[in-house]
């Protein structure tokens, strides 16, 4: 490990310990690491947005490729800056309304495809007489009951209440499995960080 790598890894190890110190309580080391990482990321993100959005989608198309009509969304973007003026702040609402409307409208087919059509396609399965068929039947019943839990126009009592109760149990089984899976992933991240600290200490003290 070169001297510069040693110093950089030392800084990373120090910041890791600063963040871990939050497990004890809020303290100046955590505050330092928190503000450093928030500040650095905000600066980094600003430059990234400048290059990927302003440069690539405004400067290049308008001034290099001659797509003058890109000026229209650019003006909408500039109108967002009017928020700094009390007199002209109302103009920014036009941009916001345009953005919200377009973004919501264009997301409709995507949501229809991913959240409804593909889900429905995957939910219709042949029920066979073997073990797979029983599994499919259970999944189908669980799905129907889970959807009925999200039916808001009817009181959940009687047979419908029973259905929605089975639905929420099905959801909870799914959530439990998801919880376990993600916790395992988080523990893997923790182990990776501890290995990083251990390796650094071994290099530092020549273990």
């Amino acid at each position, binding site marked *: 490990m070169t001297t510069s790598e040693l110093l950089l890894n030392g800084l990373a190890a120090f910041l890791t310990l600063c963040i871990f110190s939050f497990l004890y309580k809020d303290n100046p080391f955590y505050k330092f690491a928190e503000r450093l990482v928030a500040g650095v990321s905000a600066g980094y993100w600003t430059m990234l947005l400048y290059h990927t959005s302003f440069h690539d989608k405004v400067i290049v198309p308008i001034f290099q490729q001659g*797509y003058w009509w890109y000026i229209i969304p650019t003006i909408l973007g500039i109108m967002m800056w009017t928020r700094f003026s009390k007199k002209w702040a109302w103009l920014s609402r036009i941009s916001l309304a345009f953005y919200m409307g377009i973004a919501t409208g264009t997301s409709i087919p995507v949501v*229809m495809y991913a959240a409804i059509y593909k889900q429905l*396609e995957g939910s219709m399965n042949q029920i066979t007489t073997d073990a797979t068929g029983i599994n499919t039947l259970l999944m189908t019943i669980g799905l129907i009951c889970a959807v009925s839990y999200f039916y*808001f126009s009817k009181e959940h009592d009687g047979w419908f209440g029973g259905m929605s109760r089975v639905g929420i149990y099905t959801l909870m089984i799914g959530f439990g499995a998801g919880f376990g899976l993600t916790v395992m992933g988080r523990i893997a991240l923790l182990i990776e960080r501890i290995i990083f600290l251990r390796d650094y200490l071994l290099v530092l003290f020549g273990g």
Partner: protein
Amino acid sequence: MKLNRKLLWMLCICLLMAFPVNFEANAQEESASDAVDTTGIPPAPPVNVQAMDKPNDNGHGIVITWEPSPDEDRAEDGVIGYSLYRSDEKDGDYTEVRTIAAGMYSIDYEGEVYKYEDQDDREKIGSNPNPDFLEKGKTYYYKIQTTTATGLTSEFSEPVSAAPRGDWFHTGKTSYFIAIIIYFALVLTYIRQAKKGVHLYIRPIGGIEAIDNAIGRATEMGRPILFVLGTGSAADIATIAGYTILARVAKKTAEYQIPVLVPVNEPVVMSVAQETVRAAYAEAGRPDLYDEKNIPYVTAMQFPYVAAVNGIMMREKTATNFYMGLFHAESLLLAETGATTGAIQIAGTDQPAQLPFFIAATDFTLIGEELYAASAYLSKEPLLLGPLKAQDYAKALIIFFVIIGTITLSLGWDFVANIFETSI
């Protein structure tokens, strides 16, 4: 005699078993004698090459199809690929576009047919495609050359041409179109009913009922409320639902004169959140209490944002934390820190992967659709009640199709399932 008869039978059976083997051996011998050594002989070009405008696109794609070269399966020096060339003039200079490996037949056609969609690769992943890739309306010419394992190439196929053009209607989405028309007809019907004063029932939702109590608790303790809109964009549906709940919370906090802190991680979300809180304070008759500094932009990066919000929770000692919107891996980090501070926490998201953490670490969780329903439940506005009712009928239709689709598939009919096979 008996032994001889047995021997005779065994001999017959052996002869019968031997015959097919002999036939096969003869066939192999004949084939070997007929096989021509094709080493060094160039292969034939592919056949039936066709070019056409790519359907259902924005006018920058051409589809080229062809059938294999007759020499594709030859025994010696077989075909390994097809090189596709493009030019904007029939007799002009052709440049190589792509080489397709032999055997990579298109799944869109029955039989052995190759297909290549000539469009900007970024178009295929929806990532900022080059708008000039193929000029709309301009004719392009294509020809294909076959290549063998030893590098021998065929003659070029006869040039074929096509001009890309944009399509106004995506035929692969016709069923979306019908579904959306039905859905919006239901929405408009129920909005009209709600406006006429027809009572539209919505069942009580636990987490929503707790919102007012949580605000009351913060008021009694004299501490601020934290409202986190997640790490989604301003146009994510979960974030939009979050704004509605924020409006309700902000109005209450204005009435009770306690601050609501809304640190955000996206500039546009910040603008919308500021507008939402400003309007809520004005509605509560306390525009003087509105402070823009309580709705700051922190950073767009996920974990630095979490570090900053966790710091706010610890230092401001927030009494109530709301997490309403689109969350990713930060959900547990936020909710767990909130739990250690003793704050009452109410969460809501439509991200199935994050719901388990909110359920485990917060006091109340709005699961998926409950987050969307919350806005209608809280406001009772006809414009929100109508869609909620329409969504319920859409869910009933979904249940209907799942049942019918499963039954019909089990009986061997796939016509119901095919309705939902569509393209994006």
